[in-house]
């Protein structure tokens, strides 16, 4: 009987099979092999055997083990779990390791037995949960996409139908034809009610999902969510040799609560981290962090991967089913979901290349209001309930439209040719000059080309358009106006997506008003002509037009009275005063913007002081207060909160500009347009 070392004896007592490696690929068992080893490999004490020939798995593992034994260094290799079957069909779940023991090359094989069953149960439970989670996420995303599709796609043909009936009803029709047109009009309204009903049902369903856990947890804390995401995703990152860390600059003492809901924010972080992992090379680091942006918080995921392809536009990256170029992502649903969710909360999302390499995926959410931060979080600040109400009574027949104001120059963009044609026809029949284009990029192009001469009075934009969508186009127009110091052009959104979240998103992109599709002729007139009314009749509101915050239909009476008093009813002096302010104020705003960008406190104080004096003439107390606050910040060399104050100031000024513009007489060019209302340009 051979003698064994204490180690060997111990291992054999544990039921392990020990084999000593001999030259020529032969192995000899140490001691008496356990029964399972005898059954599997027909081995017995002292007998030589070629394990590689008996087990293809071991053949593979022994090659790896041989490298370890030959090098006599490095980590002892483990085989991982594998299953062998004996001649009777019994399964054995095994694991093997290569060792050096008392100067001998030893292969240790362990029968997992009941450990395997326990392990399998754990994995089974975990994977069943993962599958259930995947199915749930998939269902939620499908539902959201379906909602989006219903809102957008079903409203398009309905808009066309409504437009046709509207146009027919203003014609003098024989009574028998008028009867059928009325029926068609009424039925299209009924169909609209049905669609709204479906939307309401979906919307309630989604709201219920969104509200899960809100009351208990309060507004979501981005810091907590980001840390949780890092914790949850650390194992797969570790597996891939990528370091996942929370940004060291993240200050826990600050308030990081935002508008939104925790489970969805966690999913957004999850989607962005999965995306980062996919593109991160081994040995690189992915950093999750937050930045304080005043009224909002920016969350980011930075990677050290190859960065974004040069041709990757924001639209493409976040589009439905968008895919990476070389190493595609998960079919784009994840990032599309992030975009939809963030924008529904009034936030923004984007991706940029980082200066030092790699990419940054970020999203920005509004801070939770103080009241809701203290108690129950609310999904969003109050937004006008625009479209989701179902009319309880049959819709009334179209009313005659108010008297038309002066002809307006209108730029309208919609990728639906039928709707575009109808809208053009409806507006043209009103005497307006219409330039139709089929997408946002074309609208922006037309806007830029006409920004000086023949400037548009109103720009009407559909939301879902190729190349540039409505929101992006509106942002781009506002940006161009800000840069040039030009007066704000009235922006109207035509949209089938008109939930409260959508309307907030639209408002924040710079729109002054939105008109939900399908729309009525009078509502279209009202929403477009609002603010340009030359006739008192024009102030009659159409029920379905929804002015947004910041949109002022006509100058307030107190401003008119104040200017009359100020100028002693001298119209010429009033015009000079207003024109001078409208020309000068944008320059002062630009100076403030420059000062803020350069963090130049002295310039800020001087520019804000100058603007404050100009505004005071018009008794705009809130704006004066904002300018005064900026001036004080500049003088104190403390610019914290200045960006917010400036935003308040500029949005208020836009309203003042509109009010003052409405007090100016129409320009000769506008009073006597060169083009006939029925010029060929109005044809799409």
């Amino acid at each position, binding site marked *: 009987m051979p003698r064994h070392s204490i180690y060997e004896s111990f291992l054999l007592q544990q039921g392990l099979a020990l084999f000593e490696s001999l030259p020529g690929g032969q192995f000899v068992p140490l001691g008496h092999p356990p029964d399972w080893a005898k059954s599997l490999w027909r081995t017995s004490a002292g007998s030589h055997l070629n394990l590689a020939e008996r087990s293809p798995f071991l053949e*593979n593992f022994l090659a790896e083990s041989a490298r370890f034994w030959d090098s006599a260094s490095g980590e002892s290799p483990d085989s*991982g779990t594998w299953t062998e079957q004996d001649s009777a069909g019994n399964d054995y779940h095994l694991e093997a390791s290569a060792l050096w023991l008392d100067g001998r090359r030893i292969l240790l094989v362990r029968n997992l037995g009941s450990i395997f069953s326990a*392990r399998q149960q754990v994995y089974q439970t975990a994977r069943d949960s993962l599958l259930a989670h995947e199915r749930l996420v998939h269902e939620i995303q499908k539902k959201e996409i379906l909602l989006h599709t219903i809102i957008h796609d079903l409203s398009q043909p309905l808009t066309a139908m409504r437009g046709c009936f509207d146009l027919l009803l203003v014609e003098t029709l024989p009574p028998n034809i008028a009867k059928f047109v009325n029926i068609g009009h009424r039925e299209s309204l009924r169909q609209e009610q049905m669609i709204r009903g479906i939307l309401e049902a979906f919307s309630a369903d989604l709201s219920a999902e969104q509200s899960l856990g809100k009351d208990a947890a309060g507004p979501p804390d981005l810091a907590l969510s980001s840390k949780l995401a890092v914790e949850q995703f650390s194992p797969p990152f570790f597996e891939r040799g990528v370091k996942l860390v929370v940004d060291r600059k993240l200050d826990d003492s600050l308030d990081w609560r935002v508008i939104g809901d925790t489970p969805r924010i966690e999913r957004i972080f999850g989607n962005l981290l999965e995306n980062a992992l996919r593109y991160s090379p081994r040995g690189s680091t992915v950093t999750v962090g937050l930045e304080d942006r005043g009224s909002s918080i920016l969350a980011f995921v930075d990677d050290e991967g190859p960065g974004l392809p040069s041709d990757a536009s924001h639209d493409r990256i976040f589009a439905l089913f968008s895919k990476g170029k070389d190493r595609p992502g998960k079919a784009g649903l994840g990032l599309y979901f992030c975009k939809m969710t963030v924008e529904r909360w009034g936030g923004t999302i984007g991706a940029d290349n980082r200066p030092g390499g790699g990419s940054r995926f970020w999203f920005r959410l509004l801070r939770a209001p103080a009241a809701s931060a203290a108690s129950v979080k609310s999904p969003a600040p109050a937004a006008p309930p625009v479209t989701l109400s179902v009319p309880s009574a049959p819709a009334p027949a179209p009313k005659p439209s108010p008297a038309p104001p002066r002809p307006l120059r209108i730029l309208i963009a919609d990728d639906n040719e039928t709707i575009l044609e109808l809208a053009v026809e409806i507006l043209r029949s009103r005497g307006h000059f219409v330039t139709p284009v089929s997408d946002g990029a074309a609208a922006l192009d037309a806007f830029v080309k006409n920004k000086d001469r023949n400037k548009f009075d109103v720009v009407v934009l559909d939301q879902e358009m190729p190349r540039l969508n409505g929101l992006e186009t509106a942002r781009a127009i506002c940006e161009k106006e800000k840069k040039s110091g030009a007066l704000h052009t009235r922006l109207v959104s035509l949209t089938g997506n008109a939930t409260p979240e959508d309307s907030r998103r639209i408002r924040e992109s710079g729109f002054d008003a939105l008109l939900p599709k399908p729309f009525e002729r009078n509502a279209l007139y009202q929403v477009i002509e609002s603010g340009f009314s030359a006739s008192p009749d024009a102030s009659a509101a159409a029920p379905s037009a929804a002015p947004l915050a910041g949109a002022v239909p006509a100058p307030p009476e107190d401003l008119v009275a104040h200017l009359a008093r100020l100028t002693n009813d001298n119209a010429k002096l009033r015009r000079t005063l207003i024109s001078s302010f409208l020309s000068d104020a944008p320059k002062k705003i630009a100076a403030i913007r420059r000062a803020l960008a350069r963090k130049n406190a002295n310039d800020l104080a001087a520019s804000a002081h100058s603007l404050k004096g100009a505004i005071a003439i018009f008794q705009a107390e809130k704006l004066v207060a904002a300018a005064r606050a900026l001036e004080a910040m500049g003088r104190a060399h403390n610019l914290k909160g200045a960006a917010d104050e400036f935003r308040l100031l500029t949005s208020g000024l836009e309203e003042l500009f509109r009010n003052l513009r409405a007090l100016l007489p129409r320009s000769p060019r506008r009073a006597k347009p060169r083009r006939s209302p029925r010029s060929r340009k109005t044809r799409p």
Partner: protein
Amino acid sequence: MLQKKICMLGSFSVGKTSLVRRFVSGIFSDKYQTSIGVKIDNKTVEISGEEVKLLLWDIYGEDRFQKVQMSYLNGMSGYLLVVDPTRRETLEDALDLQQRVKESKGEVPSVLVLNKSDLLKDWDIDSDRIALLERNGQIVLCTSAKTGEGVELAFSRLARAMLESPA
């Protein structure tokens, strides 16, 4: 007799084990039982008049808990990359895995298997993406371990590709 090693690769719960069981034993179970570790089966097939013994390495599915050890793939002649088209992310996971295999083992014959063709109405996969893969030379086949549709074909196409491969 010629002997060739085939590895079954793909995410968890895409049907790798079911495909092997259908191919080797002609049986199928609807109950999902997750695989732990590796199990090796074999089957002898005739390819172009030549008998070939296929060693089928059924390797556990990848997920966030487990990644495939590349050492398991040593000596393989080809692999079936299995996707569950009712879960669109399994395609991207499979392609990600294929990239790692290429980096580790170089070009090895493979067949991309879109399993669960019996659930065609639930498929949620980008057909353009599949068409692009085929245009780039990837063999793509539809199978159902449940009905047996396409299973023999998938293994025999892979075996043929392995025999034709210069390696």
